[in-house]
């Protein structure tokens, strides 16, 4: 079953809300081994139940794995569970990328026959000091969220951008906004003299190298950030008429006084 039906997303949702039977959980895991996009979704939902507390992890996760291992250790059984064997094989192929940075790589091991849709998105995080002075995430917004606006304090806040790019050829990113007084604000690359930001295929929510303090060059008011995904490393100065654009996306920010 292809990911595009949403079936496996609903299975992860149900695992979170009600739990799954062991049979259905094993089917879900079998699918996750071969579907990077569904693994990304599973990882995000799992991060939520981890944040909730130790009692929020669905019991079927550890129970099912324990049962598989105990069964594998019984006489006349294969030494590894079927999903684990498949996972081991898949991970052997991608182990280098997996271990250099243990961050999820979107798009690996796409199902055969799956539609070649390539994921592209930019996400903005607003960081600002909390009551204790530590930098806290005040909010986040993605280019995949049409119509939403991220509020961020212009004085003490800062912006951190991250990108997602499915597997395929390398791409480059131009990320900029125009301030209310007409000035160009560059986020990636950091200046108009620099070449476009190279992007790593298969990256999921990969932060850009630097964040931007909103106390510098920013004023209170609305701000539209535009992202151009490019198929070649065009200079930032080409922004007026960028060529080789594979996707053009926008983010709406509101910088509060």
């Amino acid at each position, binding site marked *: 079953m292809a*990911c*595009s*039906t*949403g*079936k*496996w*997303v*609903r*299975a992860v*949702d*149900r695992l979170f*809300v*009600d739990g799954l039977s062991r049979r*259905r959980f094993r089917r879900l895991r079998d699918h996750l081994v071969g579907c990077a*996009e569904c*693994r990304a*979704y*599973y*990882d*995000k*939902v*799992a*991060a*939520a139940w981890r*944040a*909730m*507390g*130790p*009692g929020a992890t669905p019991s079927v996760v*550890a*129970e099912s*794995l*324990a049962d598989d*291992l*105990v069964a594998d*250790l*019984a006489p006349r059984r294969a030494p590894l569970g079927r999903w*684990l064997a498949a996972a081991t094989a898949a*991970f052997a192929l991608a*182990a*280098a990328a997996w*271990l*250099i940075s*243990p*961050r*999820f790589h979107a798009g690996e091991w796409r199902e055969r026959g799956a539609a070649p*849709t390539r994921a592209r*998105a930019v996400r903005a*995080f607003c960081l600002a000091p909390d009551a204790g002075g530590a930098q*806290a995430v*005040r909010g*986040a*917004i*993605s280019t*995949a969220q049409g119509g939403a606006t991220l509020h961020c304090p212009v004085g003490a806040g800062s912006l*951190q951008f991250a990108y*997602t790019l*499915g597997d395929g050829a390398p791409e480059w990113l131009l990320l900029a906004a125009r301030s209310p007084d007409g000035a160009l604000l560059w986020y990636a690359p950091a200046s108009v003299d620099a070449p476009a930001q190279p992007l790593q295929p298969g990256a*999921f929510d990969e*932060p850009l190298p630097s964040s931007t303090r909103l106390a510098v060059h920013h004023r209170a008011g609305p701000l539209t950030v535009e992202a151009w995904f490019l198929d070649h490393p065009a200079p930032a100065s080409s922004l007026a008429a960028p060529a080789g654009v594979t996707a053009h996306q926008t983010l709406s920010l509101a910088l509060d006084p």
Partner: protein
Amino acid sequence: MLLVENRALLDGFRAGNPAALKSVYLHYQPRVAAFLRAGFSFASGERRLRFRGYQSAFELEIAAHETMARAFLPSARLAYDGLRPFSEYVLAIARNYVLNQLRRNESLVLVGGSEELDGPPVESPAMPQPIEEREVERLLAAFLDGASPLERDLFRLRFRDERAQEDAARELGLTRIQLRRVEHKLKKRLLEHLKRNGYLADVPHAILGAGLGSLAW
């Protein structure tokens, strides 16, 4: 200290008794996962290095399971002396598992400082909390701010304190069925809250379905 204190369980574990194996797995797997998630520092020749820990829940589950599988091999069960804490034994296996993978792929991460790097395996939460984790914690806090007192109490008892349903229901003055209904609605609303606020928005749209519909298996 489970195996050190319970000699009957230790005997069953060594003998490969299925019930004993499962008990040991469920007790130690969360500790192994926490260790592998936090990462650890180590020395390789003259270099001081750090394994940053697994960020992906799926990869973490596989690594923790692989560690437990190695600890449960007959030779490893018999090699455990039953005197030292089993957690030390299994965390050393976890560490070796990761280091073998790193050596195989020559993917080592340099760290500075003069800390003692080659000591016993201990959880080492020295790395900054990933931005995604801070985001989900913020969204969770906002969700709980809008929850009812009953829901907040249920959340604390069931998820933070790991209380069983019957136990939590008794403390909240509910039947178990009533508690399950409240818990179901609470989790469903939380998931919708996470989706509505963009936490899951960067997962490619192609795989996002209609939400919490029924499954057709």
